[in-house]
Protein backbone atom coordinates (compact mmCIF):
# COMPACT_ATOMS: atom_id res chain seq x y z
CA UNK A 1 0.00 0.00 0.00
CA UNK A 2 1.20 3.49 -0.80
CA UNK A 3 2.56 5.41 2.18
CA UNK A 4 1.93 8.97 3.39
CA UNK A 5 4.88 10.39 1.49
CA UNK A 6 3.67 8.67 -1.65
CA UNK A 7 0.23 10.23 -1.28
CA UNK A 8 1.67 13.69 -0.72
CA UNK A 9 4.03 13.32 -3.67
CA UNK A 10 1.20 12.28 -5.92
CA UNK A 11 -0.88 15.36 -5.08
CA UNK A 12 2.20 17.55 -5.56
CA UNK A 13 2.67 16.04 -9.01
CA UNK A 14 -0.98 16.74 -9.87
CA UNK A 15 -0.66 20.27 -8.49
CA UNK A 16 2.37 20.89 -10.67
CA UNK A 17 0.62 19.53 -13.75
CA UNK A 18 -2.41 21.70 -13.03
CA UNK A 19 -0.36 24.83 -12.46
CA UNK A 20 1.52 24.10 -15.68
CA UNK A 21 -1.78 24.14 -17.56
CA UNK A 22 -1.65 20.45 -18.43
CA UNK A 23 -5.06 19.60 -16.92
CA UNK A 24 -7.98 21.34 -18.57
CA UNK A 25 -10.50 20.47 -15.89
CA UNK A 26 -10.89 21.06 -12.15
CA UNK A 27 -8.85 19.15 -9.62
CA UNK A 28 -9.54 18.92 -5.88
CA UNK A 29 -6.51 17.99 -3.85
CA UNK A 30 -6.06 16.49 -0.40
CA UNK A 31 -3.47 17.27 2.22
CA UNK A 32 -3.12 16.83 5.94
CA UNK A 33 -5.09 13.59 6.23
CA UNK A 34 -2.62 11.05 4.88
CA UNK A 35 -2.15 9.05 8.07
CA UNK A 36 -5.84 8.84 8.87
CA UNK A 37 -6.65 7.76 5.32
CA UNK A 38 -4.03 5.02 5.40
CA UNK A 39 -5.50 3.78 8.67
CA UNK A 40 -8.98 3.91 7.17
CA UNK A 41 -7.97 1.72 4.25
CA UNK A 42 -6.50 -0.93 6.54
CA UNK A 43 -10.15 -1.84 7.10
CA UNK A 44 -11.11 -1.85 3.41
CA UNK A 45 -10.71 -5.02 1.35
CA UNK A 46 -10.28 -5.33 -2.39
CA UNK A 47 -13.83 -6.63 -2.79
CA UNK A 48 -15.30 -3.67 -0.89
CA UNK A 49 -16.84 -0.67 -2.63
CA UNK A 50 -15.48 2.85 -2.14
CA UNK A 51 -17.58 5.86 -3.07
CA UNK A 52 -16.20 9.37 -3.04
CA UNK A 53 -16.95 12.94 -3.89
CA UNK A 54 -14.93 15.14 -6.25
CA UNK A 55 -11.85 14.83 -4.01
CA UNK A 56 -10.77 11.22 -4.36
CA UNK A 57 -7.15 10.80 -5.48
CA UNK A 58 -6.09 9.31 -2.14
CA UNK A 59 -8.91 6.80 -2.13
CA UNK A 60 -8.05 5.61 -5.63
CA UNK A 61 -4.40 5.13 -4.76
CA UNK A 62 -5.19 3.41 -1.46
CA UNK A 63 -7.74 1.15 -3.13
CA UNK A 64 -4.89 -0.12 -5.24
CA UNK A 65 -5.35 1.63 -8.55
CA UNK A 66 -1.87 2.09 -10.06
CA UNK A 67 -0.66 5.67 -9.71
CA UNK A 68 -0.10 6.08 -13.44
CA UNK A 69 -3.65 4.97 -14.17
CA UNK A 70 -5.02 7.49 -11.69
CA UNK A 71 -2.76 10.20 -13.07
CA UNK A 72 -3.79 9.60 -16.66
CA UNK A 73 -7.47 9.85 -15.71
CA UNK A 74 -6.72 13.17 -14.01
CA UNK A 75 -4.80 14.43 -17.03
CA UNK A 76 -7.79 13.40 -19.17
CA UNK A 77 -9.94 15.76 -17.09
CA UNK A 78 -11.81 13.23 -14.97
CA UNK A 79 -10.39 14.07 -11.55
CA UNK A 80 -13.77 15.11 -10.16
CA UNK A 81 -15.50 11.84 -11.00
CA UNK A 82 -12.82 9.19 -10.82
CA UNK A 83 -14.35 5.79 -11.44
CA UNK A 84 -12.46 2.50 -11.51
CA UNK A 85 -14.93 -0.37 -11.86
CA UNK A 86 -12.23 -3.03 -11.57
CA UNK A 87 -11.43 -1.65 -8.13
CA UNK A 88 -15.06 -1.00 -7.19
CA UNK A 89 -14.55 2.70 -6.88
CA UNK A 90 -17.12 5.32 -7.86
CA UNK A 91 -16.99 9.10 -7.53
CA UNK A 92 -19.36 11.92 -8.32
CA UNK A 93 -19.00 15.69 -8.43
CA UNK A 94 -22.55 16.34 -7.23
CA UNK A 95 -22.92 17.15 -3.53
CA UNK A 96 -24.50 14.19 -1.79
CA UNK A 97 -24.84 12.30 -5.05
CA UNK A 98 -23.00 9.19 -3.97
CA UNK A 99 -24.88 8.65 -0.72
CA UNK A 100 -28.04 6.96 -2.00
CA UNK A 101 -25.98 5.10 -4.60
CA UNK A 102 -23.80 3.74 -1.82
CA UNK A 103 -26.92 2.86 0.14
CA UNK A 104 -28.31 0.95 -2.83
CA UNK A 105 -25.09 -1.00 -3.29
CA UNK A 106 -25.14 -1.89 0.40
CA UNK A 107 -28.75 -2.99 0.12
CA UNK A 108 -27.89 -5.31 -2.77
CA UNK A 109 -24.99 -6.78 -0.81
CA UNK A 110 -27.22 -7.46 2.17
CA UNK A 111 -30.02 -8.98 0.07
CA UNK A 112 -27.57 -11.33 -1.62
CA UNK A 113 -25.70 -12.09 1.63
CA UNK A 114 -22.39 -11.17 0.03
CA UNK A 115 -19.25 -10.63 2.07
CA UNK A 116 -18.56 -7.08 0.96
CA UNK A 117 -18.89 -3.65 2.50
CA UNK A 118 -19.39 -0.12 1.25
CA UNK A 119 -17.29 2.83 2.40
CA UNK A 120 -18.77 6.20 1.52
CA UNK A 121 -16.61 9.31 1.93
CA UNK A 122 -18.33 12.67 2.34
CA UNK A 123 -17.49 16.16 3.49
CA UNK A 124 -18.83 18.18 6.38
CA UNK A 125 -21.34 20.19 4.31
CA UNK A 126 -22.65 17.10 2.56
CA UNK A 127 -23.06 15.41 5.93
CA UNK A 128 -25.50 18.14 6.97
CA UNK A 129 -27.65 17.82 3.85
CA UNK A 130 -31.06 16.22 3.73
CA UNK A 131 -29.99 13.33 1.54
CA UNK A 132 -27.25 12.46 4.03
CA UNK A 133 -29.69 12.24 6.89
CA UNK A 134 -32.03 10.07 4.83
CA UNK A 135 -29.28 7.67 3.79
CA UNK A 136 -27.63 7.43 7.21
CA UNK A 137 -31.01 6.84 8.83
CA UNK A 138 -32.02 4.18 6.31
CA UNK A 139 -28.66 2.40 6.40
CA UNK A 140 -28.48 2.44 10.18
CA UNK A 141 -32.00 1.23 10.81
CA UNK A 142 -31.71 -1.53 8.22
CA UNK A 143 -28.18 -2.40 9.36
CA UNK A 144 -26.74 -2.24 5.87
CA UNK A 145 -23.05 -3.18 5.39
CA UNK A 146 -21.89 0.41 4.95
CA UNK A 147 -20.01 3.11 6.78
CA UNK A 148 -20.12 6.83 6.11
CA UNK A 149 -16.73 8.48 6.56
CA UNK A 150 -17.19 12.17 7.26
CA UNK A 151 -14.15 14.28 6.47
CA UNK A 152 -14.54 17.62 8.21
CA UNK A 153 -12.36 20.48 7.04
CA UNK A 154 -15.02 22.99 8.07
CA UNK A 155 -15.54 24.32 4.58
CA UNK A 156 -17.64 23.84 1.49
CA UNK A 157 -15.78 25.59 -1.32
CA UNK A 158 -15.18 28.87 0.56
CA UNK A 159 -18.32 28.72 2.69
CA UNK A 160 -17.93 27.86 6.35
CA UNK A 161 -20.22 24.92 6.93
CA UNK A 162 -21.32 25.30 10.52
CA UNK A 163 -21.93 29.08 10.79
CA UNK A 164 -24.10 28.92 7.68
CA UNK A 165 -26.25 26.27 9.34
CA UNK A 166 -26.20 28.20 12.62
CA UNK A 167 -24.29 25.37 14.29
CA UNK A 168 -21.17 25.23 16.40
CA UNK A 169 -20.01 21.84 15.19
CA UNK A 170 -20.90 18.89 13.00
CA UNK A 171 -24.00 16.87 13.78
CA UNK A 172 -21.73 13.83 13.67
CA UNK A 173 -18.91 14.92 15.97
CA UNK A 174 -18.82 12.52 18.94
CA UNK A 175 -21.50 10.47 17.22
CA UNK A 176 -22.00 6.96 18.63
CA UNK A 177 -23.47 5.49 15.44
CA UNK A 178 -21.30 2.56 14.34
CA UNK A 179 -22.05 3.39 10.70
CA UNK A 180 -20.32 6.76 11.08
CA UNK A 181 -16.62 7.50 11.07
CA UNK A 182 -15.79 11.15 11.66
CA UNK A 183 -12.49 12.97 11.52
CA UNK A 184 -11.24 16.54 11.17
CA UNK A 185 -8.36 17.78 9.07
CA UNK A 186 -6.95 20.96 7.63
CA UNK A 187 -6.35 21.01 3.91
CA UNK A 188 -3.59 23.34 2.76
CA UNK A 189 -4.80 23.22 -0.82
CA UNK A 190 -7.68 25.44 -1.92
CA UNK A 191 -11.08 23.92 -2.72
CA UNK A 192 -10.15 23.63 -6.40
CA UNK A 193 -6.88 23.89 -8.22
CA UNK A 194 -3.49 24.20 -6.62
CA UNK A 195 -3.25 27.83 -5.66
CA UNK A 196 -2.03 29.31 -8.93
CA UNK A 197 -4.32 31.05 -11.38
CA UNK A 198 -3.95 29.16 -14.64
CA UNK A 199 -4.71 30.89 -17.91
CA UNK A 200 -5.47 28.54 -20.78
Amino acid sequence: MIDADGLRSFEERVAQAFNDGKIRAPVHLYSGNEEVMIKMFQDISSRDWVLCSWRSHYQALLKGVPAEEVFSEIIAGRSISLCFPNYRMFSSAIVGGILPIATGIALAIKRERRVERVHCFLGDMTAESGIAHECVKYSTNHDLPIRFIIEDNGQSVCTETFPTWGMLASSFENCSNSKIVYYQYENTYPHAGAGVRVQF
Partner: protein
Amino acid sequence: MYFDELKRAMEWLAGHDDTIFLGQAVAVPGTAMSNTLTGIAQEKLMELPVAEEMQMGMSLGLALAGQVPISIYPRFNFLLLAMNQLVNHLDRIGQISNFGYSAKVIIRTSIGSERPLHPQHQHVGDFTEAFRLMLGNIQVLRVEEPEDIFPAYRQAYERKDGQSTLIIEYGDYLSEK
Protein backbone atom coordinates in the same frame (compact mmCIF):
# COMPACT_ATOMS: atom_id res chain seq x y z
CA MET B 1 -56.72 -4.71 -21.29
CA TYR B 2 -54.30 -2.06 -20.10
CA PHE B 3 -54.32 -3.15 -16.46
CA ASP B 4 -53.98 -6.82 -17.32
CA GLU B 5 -51.00 -6.19 -19.54
CA LEU B 6 -49.29 -4.19 -16.81
CA LYS B 7 -49.87 -6.99 -14.35
CA ARG B 8 -48.56 -9.52 -16.84
CA ALA B 9 -45.45 -7.47 -17.49
CA MET B 10 -44.75 -7.04 -13.77
CA GLU B 11 -45.17 -10.75 -13.11
CA TRP B 12 -42.85 -11.55 -16.02
CA LEU B 13 -40.22 -9.22 -14.60
CA ALA B 14 -40.67 -10.76 -11.16
CA GLY B 15 -39.89 -14.14 -12.64
CA HIS B 16 -36.24 -13.15 -13.07
CA ASP B 17 -33.90 -13.73 -10.14
CA ASP B 18 -32.12 -10.40 -10.49
CA THR B 19 -35.14 -8.08 -10.38
CA ILE B 20 -36.38 -6.11 -7.41
CA PHE B 21 -39.32 -3.71 -7.21
CA LEU B 22 -38.95 -0.66 -5.00
CA GLY B 23 -40.86 2.47 -4.12
CA GLN B 24 -43.80 3.61 -2.08
CA ALA B 25 -46.96 1.47 -2.04
CA VAL B 26 -45.07 -1.38 -3.65
CA ALA B 27 -45.37 -4.02 -0.93
CA VAL B 28 -48.60 -2.56 0.44
CA PRO B 29 -51.73 -1.14 -1.22
CA GLY B 30 -52.05 2.57 -1.82
CA THR B 31 -51.85 3.46 -5.50
CA ALA B 32 -53.21 2.28 -8.81
CA MET B 33 -49.81 0.75 -9.48
CA SER B 34 -49.95 -1.30 -6.28
CA ASN B 35 -52.76 -3.34 -7.81
CA THR B 36 -50.49 -4.45 -10.65
CA LEU B 37 -48.04 -5.97 -8.14
CA THR B 38 -50.39 -8.10 -6.09
CA GLY B 39 -49.27 -11.34 -7.70
CA ILE B 40 -45.61 -10.85 -6.85
CA ALA B 41 -43.82 -12.53 -3.95
CA GLN B 42 -43.21 -10.19 -1.01
CA GLU B 43 -39.45 -10.80 -1.02
CA LYS B 44 -39.26 -9.14 -4.44
CA LEU B 45 -41.04 -6.00 -3.19
CA MET B 46 -39.06 -3.38 -1.28
CA GLU B 47 -41.28 -0.82 0.40
CA LEU B 48 -39.40 2.45 0.80
CA PRO B 49 -40.08 5.60 2.75
CA VAL B 50 -41.11 8.68 0.79
CA ALA B 51 -37.65 9.72 -0.33
CA GLU B 52 -37.73 10.02 -4.09
CA GLU B 53 -34.15 11.08 -4.67
CA MET B 54 -32.83 8.44 -2.29
CA GLN B 55 -34.92 5.86 -4.11
CA MET B 56 -33.45 6.76 -7.50
CA GLY B 57 -29.91 6.73 -6.14
CA MET B 58 -30.54 3.41 -4.43
CA SER B 59 -31.88 2.05 -7.71
CA LEU B 60 -28.63 3.03 -9.39
CA GLY B 61 -26.65 1.46 -6.57
CA LEU B 62 -28.62 -1.77 -6.82
CA ALA B 63 -27.95 -1.84 -10.55
CA LEU B 64 -24.22 -1.25 -10.08
CA ALA B 65 -24.21 -4.20 -7.72
CA GLY B 66 -25.82 -6.45 -10.33
CA GLN B 67 -29.56 -6.25 -9.76
CA VAL B 68 -32.24 -4.94 -12.11
CA PRO B 69 -34.42 -2.59 -10.10
CA ILE B 70 -37.91 -1.64 -11.17
CA SER B 71 -38.15 1.74 -9.50
CA ILE B 72 -41.74 2.86 -9.11
CA TYR B 73 -42.98 6.46 -8.99
CA PRO B 74 -46.77 6.35 -9.06
CA ARG B 75 -47.10 9.84 -10.55
CA PHE B 76 -44.91 11.84 -12.90
CA ASN B 77 -45.03 14.80 -10.48
CA PHE B 78 -43.38 12.66 -7.80
CA LEU B 79 -40.59 11.66 -10.16
CA LEU B 80 -39.57 15.31 -10.36
CA LEU B 81 -38.14 14.98 -6.87
CA ALA B 82 -35.67 12.40 -8.12
CA MET B 83 -34.28 14.51 -10.95
CA ASN B 84 -30.82 15.00 -9.45
CA GLN B 85 -30.12 11.30 -9.37
CA LEU B 86 -31.91 10.68 -12.64
CA VAL B 87 -30.15 13.36 -14.69
CA ASN B 88 -26.80 13.81 -12.98
CA HIS B 89 -26.08 10.18 -12.22
CA LEU B 90 -28.18 7.50 -13.87
CA ASP B 91 -28.31 9.24 -17.24
CA ARG B 92 -24.62 10.23 -17.13
CA ILE B 93 -23.19 7.06 -15.59
CA GLY B 94 -21.38 6.16 -18.80
CA GLN B 95 -19.78 9.54 -19.38
CA ILE B 96 -18.70 10.20 -15.81
CA SER B 97 -17.07 6.78 -15.57
CA ASN B 98 -15.41 6.87 -19.00
CA PHE B 99 -17.92 4.14 -19.89
CA GLY B 100 -16.57 1.88 -17.20
CA TYR B 101 -19.92 1.58 -15.42
CA SER B 102 -23.37 0.96 -16.81
CA ALA B 103 -26.63 0.59 -14.94
CA LYS B 104 -29.87 -0.95 -16.15
CA VAL B 105 -32.75 0.48 -14.17
CA ILE B 106 -36.39 0.28 -15.20
CA ILE B 107 -38.27 3.36 -14.02
CA ARG B 108 -42.01 3.16 -13.96
CA THR B 109 -44.21 6.23 -13.71
CA SER B 110 -47.66 7.36 -14.73
CA ILE B 111 -49.55 10.39 -15.91
CA GLY B 112 -52.16 10.72 -13.19
CA SER B 113 -55.76 9.88 -13.95
CA GLU B 114 -58.25 12.73 -14.29
CA ARG B 115 -61.43 10.69 -14.47
CA PRO B 116 -63.75 10.23 -12.63
CA LEU B 117 -61.94 12.27 -9.96
CA HIS B 118 -59.54 15.05 -10.85
CA PRO B 119 -56.70 15.07 -8.30
CA GLN B 120 -55.77 18.63 -9.27
CA HIS B 121 -52.68 20.05 -10.80
CA GLN B 122 -49.86 18.61 -8.74
CA HIS B 123 -50.86 15.06 -9.65
CA VAL B 124 -51.56 14.97 -13.38
CA GLY B 125 -48.34 16.26 -14.90
CA ASP B 126 -47.06 14.93 -18.20
CA PHE B 127 -43.40 15.88 -18.57
CA THR B 128 -42.52 13.41 -21.30
CA GLU B 129 -40.98 15.88 -23.73
CA ALA B 130 -39.04 17.70 -21.01
CA PHE B 131 -37.58 14.42 -19.83
CA ARG B 132 -36.65 13.45 -23.37
CA LEU B 133 -34.75 16.70 -23.67
CA MET B 134 -32.92 16.19 -20.38
CA LEU B 135 -32.14 12.50 -20.71
CA GLY B 136 -29.59 11.74 -23.37
CA ASN B 137 -29.01 8.11 -22.50
CA ILE B 138 -32.13 6.85 -20.77
CA GLN B 139 -34.78 5.71 -23.22
CA VAL B 140 -38.17 7.31 -22.59
CA LEU B 141 -41.16 5.22 -23.68
CA ARG B 142 -44.87 5.97 -23.41
CA VAL B 143 -47.20 3.02 -23.42
CA GLU B 144 -50.34 4.25 -25.16
CA GLU B 145 -52.03 0.95 -25.89
CA PRO B 146 -52.32 -2.33 -24.01
CA GLU B 147 -50.26 -4.09 -26.67
CA ASP B 148 -47.40 -1.63 -26.12
CA ILE B 149 -46.91 -2.59 -22.50
CA PHE B 150 -45.39 -6.04 -22.41
CA PRO B 151 -42.91 -5.41 -25.25
CA ALA B 152 -41.77 -2.18 -23.57
CA TYR B 153 -40.99 -3.86 -20.27
CA ARG B 154 -39.45 -6.89 -21.94
CA GLN B 155 -37.18 -4.66 -24.01
CA ALA B 156 -36.22 -2.67 -20.90
CA TYR B 157 -35.17 -5.86 -19.12
CA GLU B 158 -33.52 -7.65 -22.02
CA ARG B 159 -31.58 -4.73 -23.46
CA LYS B 160 -27.88 -5.45 -23.80
CA ASP B 161 -26.60 -1.89 -23.96
CA GLY B 162 -26.68 -1.52 -20.18
CA GLN B 163 -28.94 1.52 -20.38
CA SER B 164 -31.98 2.41 -18.37
CA THR B 165 -35.55 2.88 -19.51
CA LEU B 166 -38.25 5.24 -18.28
CA ILE B 167 -41.69 3.86 -19.04
CA ILE B 168 -44.66 6.20 -18.79
CA GLU B 169 -48.12 4.82 -18.24
CA TYR B 170 -51.53 6.49 -18.22
CA GLY B 171 -53.63 6.36 -15.09
CA ASP B 172 -56.90 6.82 -16.94
CA TYR B 173 -56.23 3.89 -19.25
CA LEU B 174 -56.29 1.46 -16.33
CA SER B 175 -60.06 1.64 -16.48
CA GLU B 176 -60.63 2.89 -20.02
CA LYS B 177 -58.58 0.63 -22.28
